[in-house]
């Protein structure tokens, strides 16, 4: 966490690089058809998870979506426990019960993940309500897409959070698409923040590919929340590079124009930061060496995940209900 006013750009770069490389590894291994889970890749959006989560303590709560990997990693999840989960192994964070869409790391404040669009938004409000009732000072951060903002739960959640002044940060990652459906086919204008405006809560819009901007916006929003002023809402505009699900790019199947992707690739959040840091002395070769070390770690994590055992069949039944009583 940032202790000073300076933006910890190096840490943010590391964080984004981890999120990127973690998923690029998935792209690599996915064609082997051993990772039998629908992967919704975050590549292109890394500045948001990195910029927001830099401000969160392990005790703070975080809610993610079907596009979950980056939020978990940025909150501190071990890559291997995610990979193992994607491989359906018993060493996965959910013992192979959830796969890519449903990670849970309660020790990191991630108490489970819904792949029902909009399903998780009220959950962040619920953890925030718990914090308020307990007075434990935790904040909750809820990530969701532009598509999710169309669900009724969005409205119900913002209304309740505002009503009760709950310590919750809503982060709408507006990547312009829900599957291959463009925002214009789903909402009356391009700014989800307009819909959020009516609840009278702290609201900002930010360039979701500019990690410093996200970091600063989240800092303001969380300061507001931590001062007990109630919820905040950030709309981060961004773009996802890969298909809605799976490692391919959407234009290959007619999902969207390739030119649009190419434009956005020029605004790669990592490249933008690298370019900026070069000006203040970052050495590309050093960075490359760092990435190589990261890659080695990730390769080892993948290998270890892949060679872990499958869960025992009886586990399914055992996990239906929790047995102990209060």
């Amino acid at each position, binding site marked *: 966490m940032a202790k000073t006013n300076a933006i910890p750009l190096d840490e943010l770069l590391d964080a984004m690089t981890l999120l990127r490389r973690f998923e690029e590894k998935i792209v690599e291994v996915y064609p082997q058809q051993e990772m039998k889970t629908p992967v919704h890749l975050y590549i292109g959006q890394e500045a948001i998870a990195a910029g927001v989560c830099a401000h969160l303590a392990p005790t703070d709560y975080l809610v993610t979506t079907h596009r979950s990997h980056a939020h978990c990693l940025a909150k501190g999840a071990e890559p291997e426990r995610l990979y193992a989960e994607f491989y359906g192994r018993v060493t996965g964070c959910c013992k192979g019960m959830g796969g890519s869409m449903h990670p849970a790391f309660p020790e990191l404040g991630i108490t*489970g993940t819904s792949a029902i669009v909009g399903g998780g938004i009220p*959950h962040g409000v619920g953890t925030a309500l718990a914090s308020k009732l307990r007075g434990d000072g935790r904040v909750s951060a809820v990530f969701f897409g532009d598509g999710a903002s169309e669900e009724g739960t969005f409205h119900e959640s913002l209304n309740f959070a505002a009503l009760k002044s709950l310590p919750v940060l809503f982060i709408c990652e507006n990547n312009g698409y829900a599957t291959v459906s463009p925002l214009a086919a789903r909402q009356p204008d391009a700014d989800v923040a307009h819909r959020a405006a009516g609840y009278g809560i702290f609201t900002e819009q930010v360039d979701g590919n500019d990690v410093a901007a996200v970091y600063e916006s989240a800092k303001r929003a969380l300061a507001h929340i931590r001062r007990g002023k109630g919820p905040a809402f950030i709309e981060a505009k961004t773009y996802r590079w890969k298909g809605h699900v799976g490692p391919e790019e959407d234009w290959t199947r007619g999902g969207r124009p390739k030119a649009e992707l190419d434009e956005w690739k020029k605004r790669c959040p990592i490249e933008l930061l690298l370019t900026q840091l070069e000006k203040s002395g970052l050495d590309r070769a050093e960075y490359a060496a760092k990435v190589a070390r990261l890659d080695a770690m990730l390769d080892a994590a993948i290998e270890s995940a892949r060679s872990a055992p499958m869960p025992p069949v009886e586990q399914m039944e055992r996990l*239906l209900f929790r047995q102990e009583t209060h």
Partner: protein
Amino acid sequence: MPWTSVCLNDEDVCCLEESGHRCLTYVQALREAHDMILASDPEAFVIGEGVDDAGGVFGSTLGLAETYGERVMDMPIAENGLTGVAIAAASVGMRPILVHMRADFLPMSMDQIVNHAAKWHSMTGGQVSIPLVIRSIIGRGWGSAAQHSQGLHSLFLSVPGLKIALPATPYDAKGMLLAAHADPNPVLYFEHRWLYGAKGPVPAGHYTVPLGQAVVRRSGADATVVAVSHAVPQAMQAAAALKDDGIGVEVIDPRAIAPLDMDTILASVAKTGRLVICDVACRTAGYGAELTCRLAEAAPQLLKAPVRRVSFPDLPTPASPALEAAYYPGVEDIKRAVRQTLAK
């Protein structure tokens, strides 16, 4: 066993009171359970439309807000979102009781119940459970009509991961709410509005009634009647009346339909060979269907006569009093069904 008794009239209550048993109405028992939960468990809170108001959900939460402040919390009319809120609060160890004035409003929050609460413990590999109680009330009469009178407990029967309680007596109302609160899993708790005034013995202290343990309300050798919720007093009345005709009816109240205590039911049908199932819901795909199927899987030869279901017809509830009267089955229908199983 006064605790399993069903008081059908003032006399029954008098008897119990005279022999030293404390009697409360169903709604008083409910309120007492809430009070005990809130007093003993700082993680518990009650949330629902009107839980803190002058009506107090027909009296069941009356005055609790004065004692427990914001832990007895009104809410916006936003059932799905607020169910999600309660689920997440439960996921971090709080113990919410979410209250709906009508079971009919549960479909609003179906996604959070079916896709989230019920599956969370499995999906998270057992890391996170959802100790959430959802109370809802089955309405009846005065033209409540199609959207304010459904018995929707069956709607959830096919969803693994939920427990479904339908207490029929004041004793069970208290004991099962305490059990539901203590359960680390999501529990749907259905009350019938017409039970609220019913009186019966209720111990003052803490006790729980296990979710999934049937009780034999009355013994008999000729026919088994399984009934839940408001159908229990009806079945008891029918049994009492049939007794006068020399027919011994065994009345079983499963108290929960998930988990369903088949052992008690099978033992009874093994004795009687006749089965009548009474529900406070439409006929098709109720707990009676599941019960009968499990019987047919376990021991179809036990049945000496066709099974009978006494339930609402497969129709939306009509408003007109003339139609309501025809719509709802009563004691006579149960008696007729029992006789039919004995005719063969």
